[in-house]
């Protein structure tokens, strides 16, 4: 049905720069021009967001119309004649970019976004060297919000395109950022203009991914990490998250969707890290702990008929999601798995198990993580994340920051040899790799839980449990019937395990609202705060759009398929750590090091 409707869309014929083109009704001038490979500059426009039409950079000339319409917001109409590069258009565009520059604190060489700033790009394209207008920055008394551990907001660089506002509202349903005041005082602000750390912001960093200038950036810890590396008394351990290895290449000039695991390891070793390890190891560990936690909750609910047990159980790997639920659904904190995220499990184990095995004093060990995420920076700074007796993870760097370090070190990334992770805590499985995409934790958990309960491998071709593989922009529900289970799990015989997978906080909100309203009857919920999961995380290379994220996703599944071990419980180092150190899943040591608790927070 859908297809036929689409086919029936009315065709509209128009002329752009002398070229005739036919497009579907409802297409914008911008989209039609792109079809003809005519590049109309844009700024407030972003593929992931609704059209705002407020920067006016994309204005074009339409014959027989007095004003210049914004190409992003103007739908095509029959017989329209458009000029994208007329004298009128060029002057108007130049004026607009000059106006934006006049209210923008353009000390580009001091800016973190120097070289990748979209406004800077436009300025160089338009040759705005003559500074037509007066500098307005001194008229505004700007302050920088740098009180947050994850995100820094500098209003003096803001050009009010509202991409961040739309991101926060449309994709994340958080609305921590909004528009305040009007006219010359109009600015992007928070509830009562509180600093970001005092409002509902989840630190997800999606706004950072979409900010065209340096107004919203991650708080970077590059210099601190260099200092640690150069400090000969310190043993610096680095862990890398699954979604970094399929996106890092983009930060270094490679096309999206390249798997660069080996080169990334080589680069990290050359940067001077003493041990290059893999967050995948604790992703596998998470599956063992979380899988057992789910089974024990199911047992309490189904066998012991304990009314106090919290089901559905929700994943707890995504720190943006954790802060979101703490603010928005604090009554459901008991439903969160108590498992720490893989990053924090790793941090706690580095300063205990790893130190013990390598005979190191934890006080001399610096633990660094490379994450696709800005919220991880906040997570590492949570007061409860010190179960090793030290700060479990000292510094969190985003994929982007690692890219900068590699450039700083003068490494030619593409030509680096492929190297392997160090051991111990460097072994990984395909199940851990897919933590980086929506549906991945669910799939990894099912691969293990099904086998634990039935003694058989999950009956999906190539272990690819496609029904739970989430898609961006939708909530995916799936169910799995447990049959012929092992005798010790007999209470699960015939039980239909109901799962739901959601990515992006707007969808997470929908799922939780359904649970709250009693409309949904799930056992297990996987939530990732960012569109597409960690691969679309707030710390990933800029730009981002659906096309890029799809390529990253394909790379993740490719990486999974290429692994010799695909199930978490078969990770040899995971088996070893239970034997040597942890004892058993959900045991005493696990509780001490691998599990955590949550903090109810207010919405305002």
């Amino acid at each position: 049905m859908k297809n036929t409707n689409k086919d029936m869309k009315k065709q509209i014929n128009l002329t752009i720069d002398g070229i005739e083109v036919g497009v579907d009704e409802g297409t914008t001038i911008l989209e039609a021009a792109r079809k003809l490979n005519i590049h109309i500059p844009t700024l407030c426009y972003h593929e992931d967001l609704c059209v705002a039409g407020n920067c006016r950079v994309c204005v074009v000339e339409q014959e027989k119309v007095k004003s210049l319409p914004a190409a992003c917001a103007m739908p095509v109409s029959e017989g329209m004649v458009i000029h994208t590069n007329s004298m009128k258009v060029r002057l108007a565009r130049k004026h607009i970019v000059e106006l934006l520059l006049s209210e923008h604190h353009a000390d580009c060489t001091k800016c973190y976004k120097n070289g990748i700033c979209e406004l800077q790009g436009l300025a160089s394209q338009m040759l705005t060297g003559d500074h037509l207008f007066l500098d307005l920055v001194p008229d505004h008394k700007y302050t920088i919000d740098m009180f947050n551990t994850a995100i820094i907001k500098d209003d003096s660089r803001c050009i009010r395109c509202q991409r961040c506002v739309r991101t926060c509202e449309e994709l994340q349903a958080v609305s921590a950022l909004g528009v305040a005041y009007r006219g010359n005082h109009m600015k992007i602000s928070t509830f009562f203009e509180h600093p970001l750390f005092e409002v509902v912001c989840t630190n997800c960093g999606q706004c950072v991914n979409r900010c065209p200038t340096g107004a919203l950036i991650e708080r970077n810890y590059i210099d601190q990490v260099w200092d640690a590396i150069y400090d000969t008394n310190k043993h610096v351990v680095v862990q890398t998250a699954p979604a970094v290895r399929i996106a890092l290449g983009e930060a270094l000039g490679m096309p999206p969707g390249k798997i660069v695991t080996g080169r990334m390891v080589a680069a990290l070793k050359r940067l001077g890290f003493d041990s290059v390890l893999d967050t995948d190891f604790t992703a596998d560990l998470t599956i063992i702990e979380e899988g057992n936690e789910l089974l024990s909750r199911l047992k309490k609910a189904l066998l012991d008929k304990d009314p106090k047990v919290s089901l559905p159980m929700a994943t707890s790997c995504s720190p943006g999601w954790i802060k979101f639920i703490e603010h928005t659904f604090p009554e459901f904190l008991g439903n969160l798995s108590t498992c720490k995220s893989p990053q924090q499990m790793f941090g706690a184990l580095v300063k205990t198990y790893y130190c013990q095995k390598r005979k190191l004093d934890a006080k001399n060990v610096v633990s660094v993580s490379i994450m696709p995420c800005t919220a991880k920076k906040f997570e590492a700074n949570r007061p409860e994340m010190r179960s090793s007796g030290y700060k479990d993870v000292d510094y969190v760097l985003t994929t982007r920051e690692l890219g900068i370090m590699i450039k700083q070190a003068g490494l030619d990334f593409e030509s680096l040899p492929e190297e392997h992770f160090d051991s111990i805590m460097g072994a990984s499985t395909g199940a851990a790799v897919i933590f980086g995409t929506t549906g991945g934790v669910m799939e990894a958990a099912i691969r293990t839980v099904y086998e634990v309960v039935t003694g058989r491998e999950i009956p999906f071709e190539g272990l690819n449990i496609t029904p739970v593989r989430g898609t961006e922009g939708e909530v995916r529900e799936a169910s799995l019937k447990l049959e012929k289970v092992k005798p010790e799990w007999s209470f699960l015989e015939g039980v239909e395990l109901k799962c739901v997978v959601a990515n992006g906080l707007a969808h997470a909100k929908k799922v939780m609202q359904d649970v709250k309203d009693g409309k949904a009857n799930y056992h297990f919920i996987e939530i990732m705060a960012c569109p597409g999961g960690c691969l679309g995380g707030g710390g990933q290379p800029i730009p981002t759009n659906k096309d890029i994220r799809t390529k990253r996703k394909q790379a993740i599944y490719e990486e999974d398929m290429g692994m010799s071990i695909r199930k978490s419980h078969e990770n040899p180092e995971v088996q070893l750590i239970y034997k040597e150190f942890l004892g058993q899943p959900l045991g005493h040591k696990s509780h001490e090091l691998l599990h955590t608790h949550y903090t109810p927070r207010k919405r305002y």
Partner: protein
Amino acid sequence: MSETKLKRVDLIFGEYSNVKYKVLTDTIKRSNDEILDDLLESGLRGRGGAGFPTAMKWRLTSQSPSAEKYVICNADEGEPGTFKDREILTRVPRKVLSGMAICGKVIGAQRGYIYLRGEYKFLLPDLMKEIETYNEHAKSIGLDFPIEVRLGSGAYICGEESALFESMEGNRGEPRNKPPYPTTSGYMGKPTVINNVETFVNVMMIMRLGPVQFKLLGTTDSRGSKVFSVSGDTPIPGIYELELGMPLDRFVDEFGDGDTKAVQVGGASGFCVPRKKFKDTVIGFEGVPTGGSMMLFNSSRSMYNVLHNYLEFFEEESCGQCTPCRVGCQQLRKGIEAVKKGDKKSLYLDQLLKLSESMKLTAKCGLGQSVANSFSSIVYNFKEEMIY
């Protein structure tokens, strides 16, 4: 003073009929096409300033397929120098409500709203009383079209129709992208007719007098009469209903103090006409249109100060979303200050004129587009005053 006085008209504020809502009761017995034909014939154009043909607006909305439609009376009278809607709502609210109800019937709307400027809150008690009377009467004649009041909160931009819808929907008052236009997607995304207070009164009077008599007033392009808010350097400030299409020199003869150097027609977003052009300027859609504001300035006034005041107003009242308006207004204000102080050469005014032209071409809504009107007309005509 001139011997032939301007023709005073008494359509808007004229006597009510003795029978309450008689025109409305009679009109709703007529067919929609008849009513629209009469409106078209009358040549009525919107009285808010932009002058869109009312019959066309109504017809487009009536043709939009939707079960839900709205009629909104724009009473967010915020243009500096305009105060006629306040008077109309105070003295002849019944005519306004009748016009709205006729519109509701023609387009098939279920509900009407008066979006009342926040500063006009004091009008509420009397207005509510009249609305109550109206709602009862509408029910009694079988017209299912109740009217309510929504109060603004003081933002000039909310007089822009799409920002007004946003405000009514509880959102930040920011203009929308157009298209879609209100005729297809207005309040709550439904087809909506939004007209100025005075337009609705005109509709009611056309229904009462018939288009032929209405057309006796005004010119081909500007039919009927208009309520003017006269202020500034005049011995007789106030509200006057005058025939459209009058030459400005006759207006100045009658309302000026003998020393009028300029008239700002249409408020801060309108045009400034200098003395030398009075004779050739017609007040109407064929000449200089106005939403009603006529501000007279005599030679004691500094046009630099006048312009500076307008620019400060726009700088604050811009919603701030689009670049040309938000930053452009600041640049224009700061720019004339710099020229006045000598920080910038007088040639910089040309740069600013080009900028104002770009604002006119690229701003998202009428506010940003119309800043250039007063800016360029004042700077062109009073350049020396800007520099020295």
